[in-house]
């Protein structure tokens, strides 16, 4: 098969021939297969097509540039990768071009020109001298035996001898042809569907990708594609319920293009159904297609589901994502920093911004995420237990200060039960991509109010002082009492500003090291007493009887509240945003594709399957009966070869031989019978 590669190199050849030689060589083909395999790994190790900011964060500015230049953020669309694929197609094409004529000839040619010596050299052979048989009869019997064994044959009479050349399974060669043609066909189809066209247009300066965050209508013409300008694309659009769009976004590197559609898709309704476990069961978009030209005034109603796309005029529309379409929220902003404890009532919607002014200047609250369900691993579960719990609705938002710095928050609406106590959970992170750290606000009567009042009171220096003075039992040394109250107020202040860490810092600063543990313990216990008194006052105001001491629940609440207070300085927000009501508006993420190459690729698939099976499971087999008259009889030499599946053929040959032997009434010759395990 590899005649071409094995041929020696003469001194001078035309360039075309050399190129043909190079591209058609088996070594190149095998190298390409391996190279593509290895290159493909890159794109699976490095997540592709992420926002470019993520890459900068990951690699630093220098390597970010280098990797970008190498096209590693979109390996499979990069010039070099497509180039290698092109090489493979070319190489396979050249291989086909050179092999096909040979193979077609092989398929139909009976090889009647064989030498006796070469037949005798075959591994599968038998030879008899048949006394009393004349050539005609031997020929007739041998050829009919061949036919009985499924072989077609052709007879050639050379005067002194005759050769009946039989063959079977000539179509085996089609296997090679189909398989390799399939590689070329699929490759071409794939290139048609790839982003080659966009690249070409971009290179010619006909389009430019847009990197700004614009509404679709504002995107300039240079970044817009009219329907039909490229033969294949794959774009996305997020449609809130009740809205319509006649375009999709094509993401490209760190920007996008707008591909216009010749029709509009309206999202009537988006539904998510859930299993009893809370996992999503189906995502369904009820859509209307508006297309005056083809549908008139009557829109087309359709349902799109995962695994059930809608194909309209060659455009396939898929359910691919979902999100928020501007859910309406009511929120209570509970102050965390001052002595005020009444919440500020707010209204907003996802995608919108609220402005708040506080002591720290003005803040922007960017509401960007609402979720109805949050199915998370059960926090109390043992590791490996695959239990999930639905933590209910949540709101995610960014808090941006005047300098533009933002922190992200993620608040659950309802309190969650953790270790048998209820908490409002709010997550915070300073950098996108980091894990959230969570603040657990203890809930009383399903409300964060008690904690927030407690917190406000702790901040209220006036009332704290009054309380301390009132609550302290009269002592014999009033100045000492005054000093103690000062210490208590100071410790409280430190705690409010910096948590427990601030207390230990202070201890370190004022106490000699040998007495440090003792002093810290004392400070903490003083602080705790102070906090307890404030807490008791809050309870009293609520009407909870505290004269007999507090119950276990209040005690636990107090401990949780102190932990939460200690964490507040790191929380970074001057308020706690509690979602009190919502009206969900869903959005459905639809993907619209148009791929002109699909049919081509599918034809390639069919060829590939047919080819592989023909190649593996059929074999081109040849059997020769060579016969010549000898004194008193005829000499018959039987020999055969198979291009594939030698072991099977050895057995088949033994059978042919046995059939012949029976017809001629001789013994089969045992030597070529294969050991059965082969």
């Amino acid at each position: 098969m590899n005649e071409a590669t094995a041929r020696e190199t003469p001194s001078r050849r035309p360039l075309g021939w050399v190129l043909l030689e190079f591209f058609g060589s088996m070594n190149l083909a095998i190298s390409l297969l391996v190279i593509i395999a290895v290159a493909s790994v890159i794109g699976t190790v490095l997540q592709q097509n992420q926002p470019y900011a993520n890459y900068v964060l990951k690699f630093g500015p220098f390597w970010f540039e280098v990797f970008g230049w190498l096209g590693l953020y979109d390996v499979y669309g990069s010039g070099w990768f497509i180039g290698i694929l092109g090489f493979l197609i070319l190489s396979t094409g050249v291989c086909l071009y050179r092999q096909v004529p040979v193979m077609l000839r092989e398929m139909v040619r009976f090889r009647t020109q064989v030498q006796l010596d070469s037949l005798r050299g075959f591994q599968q052979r038998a030879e008899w001298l048949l006394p009393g048989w004349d050539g005609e009869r031997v020929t007739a019997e041998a050829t009919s035996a061949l036919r009985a064994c499924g072989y077609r044959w052709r007879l050639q009479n050379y005067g002194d001898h005759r050769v009946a050349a039989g063959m079977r399974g000539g179509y085996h060669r089609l296997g090679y042809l189909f398989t390799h043609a399939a590689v070329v066909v699929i490759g071409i189809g794939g290139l048609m569907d790839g982003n080659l066209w966009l690249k070409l247009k971009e290179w010619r300066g006909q389009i430019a990708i847009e990197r700004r965050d614009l509404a679709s209508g504002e995107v300039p013409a240079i970044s817009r594609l009219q329907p039909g300008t490229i033969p294949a694309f794959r774009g996305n659009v997020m449609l809130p319920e009740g809205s319509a769009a006649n375009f999709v976004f094509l993401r490209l590197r760190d920007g996008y293009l707008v591909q216009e559609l010749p029709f509009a898709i309206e999202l009537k309704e988006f539904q998510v159904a859930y299993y009893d476990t809370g996992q999503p069961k189906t995502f369904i978009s009820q859509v209307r297609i508006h297309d005056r030209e083809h549908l008139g005034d009557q829109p087309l109603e359709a349902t799109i589901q995962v695994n059930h796309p809608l194909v309209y005029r060659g455009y396939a529309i898929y359910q691919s994502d979902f999100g928020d379409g501007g859910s309406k929220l009511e929120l209570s902003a509970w102050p965390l920093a001052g002595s005020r404890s009444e919440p500020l009532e707010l209204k907003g919607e996802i995608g919108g911004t609220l402005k708040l002014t506080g002591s720290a200047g003005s803040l922007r609250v960017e509401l960007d995420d609402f979720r109805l369900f949050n199915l998370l691993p059960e926090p109390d579960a043992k590791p490996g237990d695959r239990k999930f719990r639905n933590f209910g609705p949540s709101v995610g938002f960014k808090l941006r200060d005047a300098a533009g710095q933002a922190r992200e928050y993620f608040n659950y609406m309802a309190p969650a039960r953790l270790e048998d106590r209820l908490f409002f959970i709010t997550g915070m992170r300073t950098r996108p991509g980091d894990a959230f750290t969570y603040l657990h606000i203890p809930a009383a009567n399903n409300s964060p109010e008690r904690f927030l009042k407690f917190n406000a009171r702790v901040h209220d220096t006036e009332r704290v002082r009054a309380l301390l003075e009132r609550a302290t039992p009269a002592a014999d040394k009033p100045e000492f009492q005054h000093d103690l109250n000062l210490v208590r107020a100071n410790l409280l202040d430190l705690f409010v500003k910096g948590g427990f860490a601030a207390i230990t810092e202070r201890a370190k600063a004022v106490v000699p090291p040998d007495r440090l543990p003792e002093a810290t313990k004392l400070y903490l216990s003083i602080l705790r007493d102070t906090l307890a008194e404030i807490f008791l006052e809050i309870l009293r105001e609520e009407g909870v009887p505290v004269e007999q001491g507090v119950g276990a629940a209040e005690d636990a609440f107090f401990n949780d509240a102190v932990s939460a207070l200690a964490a507040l300085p790191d929380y970074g927000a001057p308020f706690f945003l509690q979602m009190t009501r919502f009206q969900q508006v869903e959005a459905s993420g639809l993907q619209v594709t148009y791929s002109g190459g699909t049919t081509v690729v599918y034809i390639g698939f069919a060829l590939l399957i047919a080819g592989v099976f023909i190649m593996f499971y059929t074999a081109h087999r040849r059997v020769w009966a060579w016969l010549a008259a000898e004194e008193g009889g005829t000499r018959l030499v039987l020999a055969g070869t198979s291009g594939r599946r030698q072991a099977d053929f050895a057995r088949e040959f033994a059978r042919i031989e046995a059939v012949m032997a029976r017809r001629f009434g001789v013994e089969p010759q045992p030597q070529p019978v294969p050991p059965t395990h082969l």
Partner: protein
Amino acid sequence: MAVTHEVMLESWDQPAPWRSLRAWDVLWGLLVLAGSGYAYMLYRPYMDGYEVAIQSGATLALIAWGLYWKPARAFTLVVTGLAVIALWRYGNDLGLRRSNFLLKYFLESQAAFMWMSTLYVLATLTYFGALLSRSDFTGRTATALTWSATVMGLTGLLVRWRESYLLGADIGHIPVSNLYEVFILFALITALLYLFYEDRHRTRAMGGFALLAISGAVAFLLWYTLDRQAHHIQPLIPALQSYWMKIHVPANFIGYGAFALAAMLGVAYLLRVAVEARQPTGLLARVLPPLELLDDVMYKAIALGFAAFTIATILGALWAAEAWGGYWSWDPKETWALIVWLNYAAWLHLRLTKGWRGAPMAWWAVIGLFVTLFAFLGVNMFLSGLHSYGTL
């Protein structure tokens, strides 16, 4: 153990396949048709056109399998019998799996998988025992153990299929939907492929090696069950709710199973080469399977695996075209499937066009298993993508 010419002659004078059908063959075909027809009557209201097509295809494939390889018939009948008993015992009450003796200790899917696991490990040891002791009886015992394990495994899968419906009509699905289930499928298919070659080549020398891969899968399964509790039946995420899953996944696992088998034969090959170099007359050199045999079966397994994997990848592409909006998205799982495929394409080219044989090809087959393993395990564990079903 050469086959005599009489035997060959006997089976020779049968020019056309249909004329060579005997009463038993016809009976087999009719039996499968009847069974499939009955199942069709029972479940017709719940099947759509695609599923009816898949059932018809599976019926024909099963008939063909039994005609091509006789032991498949007894296997099918035993598995069907056991599964029917289990279904009959269950009725409509899943709770019986805790209380009914037969179900609890034998036919309930977890019990069946435990039997399968135990029997496969025993079979592995027995095969090696037979290899070293050269005892024919031990060898036959190993084969029997492997068959029994496979029967239990497939029965367990069928029963699990039913159990998933007993859990809730909307939860029911064919048990090839997560890593736990496909590992069982992997063990079964690898075992059946091995048993086929054992039968066709009339040697049990390769058994221990082939079963080693299965024992590895069993070890993973046990860890996955006991440590990760992965055996619970989970409802299907939307992306998997498609008839394509029924054909795409099994086709893939014929490929994986065949590649794993080839790799284990590669190990045997390399071992034998090493042994022959060191102690050409030692016990191992005498009992290990011969090199030509290993080379031949390794090639056949890779060829079969390649063909199955080609089909599976194409089915995957067709499914992707329906689920994700394009037949190819360079998602990590797809990409790794391509890598596996290209790897074996290169292997086949070297062998067929360059005539490479021997240790290098055996090494390559072994390394190929790691590539394959990454494609079917590593990708799910380490890489994210459409196949990890994070969101939709």
